[in-house]
């Protein structure tokens, strides 16, 4: 982490591009919490890469004065994997929606988690498909009526926190756009965490699925006596609850993927084409 001589402020991470989100969108809170978190960490903007897939929330790299990639629907994690493996010196943050990360991109999520790359993945979950105008999403509750589920969904919703735990993410937390200060703290902690950090954010869509009132009445901090190093306790808390729990479910230290790979550098050699070809003689 490079510390700047003149302290960086949230504004330094804000690009000249104005967000295209609808007024009141939960993603604004995530964006502003991200600026503040990056300032808290004093990360040089050029050392940060924000990686996204496709969807409303995935526009976020354009709004950040950092490096970024706006990739394909569902494919942010593979691209982030390549960036972080190739350049462990960079801070890589993946940001996307529930459809992007848990529907089309669901095949990549467990692999990124189990590899334990040192990246933070933020899922801005609005439980609807906003950009394609209000179809249901993999996290929509049973019975959710939408343009593509006019009689109500009959599918069980995906549980991103449980999935992250099951996949081997080494840091798992939940935030809520209605609680921006906590969100900022969680992003700071997620970036600081050495390993695959997953932050699930309830981020309501005011246009098609306004759940602010629902979550305002339901969110509650994870009980103070919860031990986040207790995996089974984290699993129990992640199961469907009366309340929507916010805070850190799980935290563990295990070697990160890119460092385990870099261990080979102890035997690092320069490539010698002459020597390599001689093997075939």
């Amino acid at each position: 982490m490079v510390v700047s001589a003149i302290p960086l402020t949230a504004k330094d991470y804000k690009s000249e591009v104005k967000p295209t989100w609808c007024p009141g969108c939960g993603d604004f809170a995530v964006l502003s919490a991200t600026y503040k978190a990056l300032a808290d960490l004093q990360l040089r903007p050029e050392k940060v890469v924000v990686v996204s897939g496709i969807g409303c929330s995935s526009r976020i790299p354009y709004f950040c004065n950092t490096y970024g990639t706006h990739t394909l629907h569902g494919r942010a994690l593979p691209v982030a994997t390549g960036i972080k493996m190739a350049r462990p010196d960079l801070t890589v943050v993946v940001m996307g929606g529930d459809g992007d990360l848990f529907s089309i991109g669901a095949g990549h999520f467990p692999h990124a988690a189990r590899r334990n790359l040192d990246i933070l993945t933020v899922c801005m979950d609005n439980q609807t498909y906003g950009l394609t105008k209000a179809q249901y999403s993999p996290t929509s509750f049973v019975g959710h009526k939408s343009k593509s589920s006019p009689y109500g969904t009959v599918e069980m919703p995906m549980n991103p926190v449980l999935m992250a735990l099951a996949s081997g993410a080494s840091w798992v937390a939940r935030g809520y756009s209605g609680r921006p200060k906590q969100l900022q703290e969680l992003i700071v902690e997620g970036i600081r965490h050495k390993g695959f950090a997953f932050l699930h954010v309830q981020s309501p869509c005011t246009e098609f699925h306004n759940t602010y009132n629902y979550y305002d009445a339901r969110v509650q901090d994870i009980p103070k006596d919860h031990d986040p190093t207790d995996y089974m306790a984290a699993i129990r808390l992640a199961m469907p609850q009366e309340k929507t729990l916010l805070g850190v479910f799980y935290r563990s230290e295990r070697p990160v993927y890119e460092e385990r790979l870099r261990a080979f550098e102890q035997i690092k050699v320069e490539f010698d084409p002459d020597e390599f070809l001689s093997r075939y003689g």
Partner: protein
Amino acid sequence: MPKSEIVIRLGGEGGEGVISTGDIFTLASARTGYHVFTFRTYPAEIKGGHAWYQVRVGPRPVLSMGDQVDVLVAFNLEAYEKHKHLLNTEEGVLIYDPDEVTPEPRPRTVFYPIPFNRIARQDLNFVRGKNVVVTGVLAGLFGLDPTSLTQFITQRYKRRAELLDQNLKALEAGLNYAQKNLTKADPYYLTPTERVGRLVMSGNDAIVAGALTAGCRFYAGYPITPASEILELMAQTLPRLGGTSLQAEDEIAAIGAVLGASFAGVKAMTATSGPGLSLMTEFMGWSGMAEVPCVIVDAQRAGPSTGMPTKLEQGDLNHALFGGHGEFPRIVIAPGSVEDAFWQIINAFNLAEKYQTPVIFLSDQSLSHRTESLLKPDLSKVKVVDRIQPTADDLANGYERFAITETGISPMSIPGTPGGMYVAPGLEHDEKGHVDNPLASHEKMVPKRFRKLETLQKELEAPPRYGAPDARIGVIGWGSTEGAIREAVERCVAKGMKVAALHPKVLNPLPEKHLEQFISSMDMVIVPEINYTGQFARYLRSVFGIPVVRINKWGGLPFTAGEIQRKIEEVVNGR
């Protein structure tokens, strides 16, 4: 008359050592100074099924696998039945296990019955040593220097003393059997020649060697036949070089990771085969739009769908040229031989870096898996190109990642560079990468991106040309068929026909100027390729508006020079 050019074919049950016998024999021949060219095919199952291996050995460069079989080694009855019709009718040699095969009489064929199984099982009590016994017999029969074989076996088993001992005994048993029990009655001799040490590499080996030489330090792939050896060799080599290799969860993730690494400033590659290329197609478009360089090796196999994983087809050209939605520049390269694969993959990296586009590199099952002997490439000729990066001035004056330039190429900043921040977008964007005014951007950016191909096309060198300088019949081929086409054309020229061949390596953009010159000097153009629909023939026709005569082969096997020669003669005479 003694002969030192031999085509040997070994056939047997998959898993009983047919391929390894061929490999050992090939390497020993090359070490003794011979040129070699092999072809192998095996069933898609792990055990069982029929496998065969062909090696053509000669004192002069060999360009293709050979037309007929001079020596057939039948490990079992199936091998005998499957291949006997190809055996040289004048000077054929049949080596077989009499406990397995009872051959029918053939005039002018030399028979060497050798009880491989009995020697391995009873004399040596080492069933798995049968392949080495066969190798010993072949060395004994054709006079191959046993020292190189002993060296090879010692090297291979140096860490496993017991196996080493058993294998050396098996080799000796084979040599002894040939010398004591067989009376040499065939004309083939592989006695030591000039002793120029040659490398023996497969196409996949050469691709890895070239990629690493070009500076590739990141590889991601998903196992698929016939590209898997590239993943394995990269996984073995890259970590020692401070690079990284990833076995991704699927092909989509593989190319995604490659593009991530490349965006981050590291030269990166993936390798796959047809089904994997299909999955990578969407990211190919992203690479084109976001102008992130990448190299995609497609070791083509017979399709469609899962098709024939271990069999050859030049079936993915259309996909490489046109696959994907929308329009984006991509470079397509197809190497002609193992040695060419080394040079062309370096070219692929250089072009990817210079033009910031996807480069699709079309190998195929025959090229990826076959081995050829070659002199060690002259490494002083290696030229490595790196992508252009913004200058301090560019960065100070409102850096535009996608600046409109005459060449279509814009400086690409690397994460970590202050002032160079930008978003690599899949959406249409302006010079800065902003996405808010797509219509206006699209109008400017489409030609900007395609100008890269125009720039490249002007720089393309003349493709290799073979045959008569005053030819009136032109053959245009692509990819791994180069050797067979060249040999066929040279044979036709030797018979007095005015035939020449051109073999372009960069297929998109085509070296149009050079092709036009060639085509306009011909009365007729013939296009041989291993597919049913004549993808390259159609492509040439669409670009040059000329009628072409197609020679197509499908069914999973490469062309022999004789097949192409006969077709050229038919076409020429039938006119």
